[in-house]
């Protein structure tokens, strides 16, 4: 401790305490300000018809965008869950140490890539070279690149949280590695994998930059995986607020509120499953 008079030391303590608490309070206020502003803004121009009619960011509603967001994020989740769970198995059950560290580097790097870089890659490869065009498939494949690291990481944690005794008991009964994996490990890891998947879904639902040049926009519903563009909620926010009409702004705010509501609900369910799994374990 430096030699300071007691008065100064207590003053510094008081200042730190005051500044820290004041900033924490200011941040909570900022959070309320962001969420409150969006929900109040959505309340002003909202009419329930927006949720059940399709639209094109200047007129109509959000139904096509809501459906599109679920299609894109859901399909991306399917891709990334499939690969992510296998990656997690490779890391925990089937790993050689050299391939494992290579996989970890790849996953960490994918997680760190800016979404616009992934979007540019998706445009160059899926849209142009593989001739998918702006489509559900191109959009969801691009999204899955971002969601993959999340699923791989959470599945890895979930699998390594299964007590060793469980798999050892199964091996002692003569089960093969694949049987142990599918019937013991994945079964007991399921709640945590699902809660991680819901988190990944919420992240995918809120993404924009990757979809601008891979999914396009559709005032109606996509007709097939390729060759048909697809609308999504974040596009309505981005395009709507840039248009001069009052109604576009109302749609942008409504889309924001639907998005935040969806994301918070997914996060809540994810937390609930996680806690329930922790209680049962």
């Amino acid at each position, binding site marked *: 401790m430096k030699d300071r008079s007691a008065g100064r030391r207590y003053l510094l303590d008081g200042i*730190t305490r005051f500044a820290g608490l004041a900033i*924490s309070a200011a941040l909570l206020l900022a959070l309320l300000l962001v969420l409150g502003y969006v929900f109040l803004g959505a309340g002003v121009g909202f009419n329930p018809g927006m949720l059940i009619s399709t639209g094109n960011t200047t007129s109509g509603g959000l139904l096509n965008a809501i459906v599109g967001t679920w299609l894109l994020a859901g399909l991306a989740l399917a891709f990334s869950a499939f*690969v992510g769970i296998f990656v997690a198995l490779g890391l925990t059950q089937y790993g050689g140490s050299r391939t494992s560290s290579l996989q970890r580097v*790849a996953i960490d790097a994918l997680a760190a*890539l800016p979404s616009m*870089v992934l979007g540019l890659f998706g445009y160059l490869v899926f849209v142009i070279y593989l001739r998918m065009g702006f489509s559900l498939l191109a959009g969801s494949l691009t999204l899955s690149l971002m969601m993959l*690291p*999340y699923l791989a990481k959470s599945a890895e944690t979930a699998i390594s949280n299964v007590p060793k005794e469980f798999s050892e008991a199964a091996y002692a009964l003569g089960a093969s590695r694949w049987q142990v994996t599918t019937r013991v490990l994945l079964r007991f890891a399921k709640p945590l994998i699902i809660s991680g998947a819901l988190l990944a879904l919420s992240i995918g639902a809120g993404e924009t930059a990757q979809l601008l040049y891979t999914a396009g926009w559709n005032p109606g519903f996509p007709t097939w995986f390729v060759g048909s563009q697809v609308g999504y909620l*974040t596009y309505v926010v981005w395009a709507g607020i840039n248009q001069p009409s009052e109604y576009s702004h109302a749609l942008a705010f409504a889309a924001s509120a639907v998005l935040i509501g969806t994301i918070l609900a997914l996060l809540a369910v994810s937390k609930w499953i996680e806690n329930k799994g922790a209680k049962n374990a």
Partner: protein
Amino acid sequence: MKSDELLVKTVSLIPFVFLAAIFVFLVYQAVPSIFYNGLRFFTSYVWNPGMTFEQPVKGPFGFEASPGATFGVLLFLFGTLITSALAISLVVPVTLLTSVALALYVPRPMAKVISSSLQLFAAVPSVVYGLWGVSFLEPALLKYVFPWSETALGFIPWFRGPATSGSGIVASASVLVLMVLPITSSIVLDTFMTYQSRLQAPILSLGATKAETGFVILRLIKRQVIGATFLGLARALGETMAVLMTCGGAINSMPSSIYSPVNTMAAAIASLLDSAFIDPSGMTLSALAEVGLLLMVISLASSAIGKAMTGRVALRGEVL
């Protein structure tokens, strides 16, 4: 090798294959621009796809571009760095102060509630921050903050007005603060509390005040704090939508004050990719790929440093 092992090993190579593919494709796509623009790419701030309706002409090394085309990344690079640096310079003190306050001065259950509320900043999609920035923050900045800063701080060159719009460096940095905060604060608070459980009683028993206890612990976890800062920086560098909507979309003019519009690499790719569609020579797309490559390298470097120092990875505000 058994079939199940083969299956697992093959599928789990996919992330690596994609990472390699992203790098290779960006390099491949950027090659014409790397040769055509050369080093001028990094020293020029002019972005001009040229006369795209005329026949492309051959430039240096025989790569074709529209007549008059010239591409420089300086404005975007500067915008990325200045908005991220400004955001980080605000985020670090805020993170340290809130971590100390929540860990030392607030009852534990309440601290838990507050810190998980602050994590909700990560749940807000980036485009919604953009919407909030455009319709709430920018008018507020222009009406209440800028008039004050012009008169009070106008003697500093970069603070001299007149401010004509709320969008620009300040608005972008402000939304970035809110987006980066969940990453840094969750890592710092988490590490702080781990050390605190062992060290608080011994340090306090030496007669230190709580603030002094906090400073001692912060000094011990310096490495994690710096690492968390780099992870946050990586997030700020790569952020697209919120910055795209609030940066003012500057092109071909370097910012001259904090009120100037600016542009970042990620935002430039998002806003200029349309213009690549109408460039028959493909040079605009190639130049954008070079921007993407540069952005990829910079943000990977930042997050690699963060990962090395904290052992963690941050993904869209969720810390793993």
